[in-house]
């Protein structure tokens, strides 16, 4: 007799079980011991050489802290980005591993919810520009300006790089609180598309820098996962390219030169006030701004170090110049919520249409049931038809 389980191939079941074990950070030997089966049996199951029985799948799901439904429903998105990162970087520390896992979970959930709703996220990816032999800095400057033209930005400042990445390019960008050492991650996968995770614990100017850095990897080394970690060696060709690209993308040389001339007109020295205004205009940190001015020979090398030696340029000084002009950091505020706004909205629609049960949705979003209910209440999605207006499509 054919069962529901027979609709999935032994290879597919094995692959999903292997990924779930990996996500649970368990070794085959540990699982075999826990379930009192031979390790070779588990190997055979994971390789699809032996079809797992329902009772075995149930015990494995329990051990992996998941459900049979989450493991084997046919709409589940079964891609794990963490092994990609591990292959690239060798054995990772916990902070990087957790960040990679979080990026996977967010992207998986978003894609499954989109698929359920029939939403097709448009991918408007720019052409790849592999790093060529020669001066990477020159190439990065060129590629950054080319992308600016492609996006229709000209030399205007990038006021919100996250929105640009999401809406103009179709990159999945998530801003969540990560270990302070991890600035951001980038990965590309056929099923999930281009995905980026930025650290909400960093100030928004630094996040913009990170996003531009990861954008450089998207342009130059798209199929290679990337983690921007403060302990990372930034001297490789790829990293030098990414840093130069980020600077050129956020602070394009013609615009910086023009604005510098305007702001410092009549002045004999570069003051803190000048730096604060320029940094605010281009949406970058004060340090990044000064280093870019040094880079473009608009100020002497070592200017930032001089500022740093004499007390730096403080937030208070910036506030004296700008007042409340910068406005609240909405992305950082959003990061404190149980899930992203976009995921919340998709989840609310899926819930409203009855496409996922409360248990399925809570598990997919890694929320507990009451957390999920609070989120849906906040979006005012539960309830009767009397609580919303009809959209015309």
């Amino acid at each position, binding site marked *: 007799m054919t069962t529901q389980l027979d609709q999935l191939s032994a290879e597919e079941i094995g692959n999903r079980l292997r990924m779930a074990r990996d996500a649970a950070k368990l070794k085959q030997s540990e699982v075999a011991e826990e379930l009192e089966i031979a390790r070779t049996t588990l190997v055979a199951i994971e390789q699809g050489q032996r079809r797992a029985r329902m009772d075995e799948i149930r015990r494995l799901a329990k051990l992996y802290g998941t459900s049979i439904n989450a493991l084997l429903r046919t709409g589940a998105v079964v891609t794990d980005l963490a092994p990609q990162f591990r292959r690239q970087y060798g054995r990772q520390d916990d902070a990087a591993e957790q960040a990679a896992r979080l990026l996977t979970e967010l992207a998986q959930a978003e894609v499954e919810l989109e698929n359920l709703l029939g939403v097709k996220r448009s991918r408007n990816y720019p052409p790849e520009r592999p790093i060529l032999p020669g001066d990477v800095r020159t190439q990065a400057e060129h590629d950054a300006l080319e992308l600016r033209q492609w996006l229709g930005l000209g030399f205007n400042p990038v006021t919100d790089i996250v929105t640009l990445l999401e809406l103009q390019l179709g990159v999945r960008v998530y801003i969540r609180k990560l270990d302070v050492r991890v600035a951001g991650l980038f990965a590309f996968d056929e099923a999930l598309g281009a995905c980026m995770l930025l650290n909400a614990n960093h100030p928004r100017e630094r996040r913009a820098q990170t996003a531009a850095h990861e954008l450089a990897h998207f342009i130059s080394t798209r199929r290679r996962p990337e983690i921007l970690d403060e302990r990372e060696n930034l001297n490789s060709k790829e990293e030098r390219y990414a840093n130069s690209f980020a600077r050129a993308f956020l602070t394009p040389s013609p615009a910086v030169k023009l604005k510098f001339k305007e702001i410092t007109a009549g002045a004999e020295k570069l003051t803190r006030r000048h730096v604060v205004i320029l940094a605010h205009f281009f949406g970058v940190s004060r340090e990044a701004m000064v280093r870019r001015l040094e880079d473009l020979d608009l100020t002497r090398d070592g200017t930032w170090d001089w500022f740093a030696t004499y007390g730096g340029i403080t937030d208070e000084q910036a506030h004296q110049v700008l007042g409340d002009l910068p406005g609240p950091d909405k992305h950082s505020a959003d990061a404190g919520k149980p899930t992203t706004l976009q995921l919340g909205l998709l989840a609310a629609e899926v819930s409203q249409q009855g496409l996922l049960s409360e248990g399925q949705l809570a598990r997919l979003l890694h929320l507990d049931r009451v957390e999920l209910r609070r989120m849906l209440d906040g979006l*005012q999605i539960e309830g009767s038809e009397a609580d919303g207006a009809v959209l015309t499509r």
Partner: protein
Amino acid sequence: MGLSSLDDETAPFIVDASTVINLNGTNCAAAILGALPNRIIVMDAVIDELRMDNRSSRDDAKLLASLLADGLVSEMTIEALKDDHFEHLVLGNTADTLDDGEAAAIACAIEMQAVAVIDERKAKRICRARYPWVIIASTVDVLAHDRVVKALGDERLAEATYHALSAARMRVLPEHIDWVVNLIGAKRAVLCPSLPGHVRAAAWQKIAKT
């Protein structure tokens, strides 16, 4: 009160995680379940789920363990189910399947000719469509059970229902809204975000008039 149709004292009640969370939210789950003449069963998959479902600093698993220890609820395992309803409910397309706890509760209700007490719309819809003979109830049906009403009294029941709505964000079916609002009163109804917005707006108007 006469709302609840759970009048068969011999049919066990199979409670899903959504119901356990709501009952714990009342702050008097033991008194409610103790008042019922029916046997209350919870599936092992539900217990497993509640053990992990604790991010918002609740501990439904601990509360459920005390209900189990007091004999107010008994546990049943998926392995004990003879038919393959569970398998049919968890495997397949995402939109046509349920998570393990919800599926196990329904599968158990089918086999034991019991009442599935589930506060979850998709689970109810799938159960009605595939197993129309299964009796489905909600937490509100349990709260409105004659024995519970009698045991708790109106004010304690109102307070318990209000707690389930405010702490556990209990969902209320449209046909139960009037009963709930009449029980807890307009002043408490406006404080319950899980009640639909138009219901809270109507409660505000009622308060304003008085």
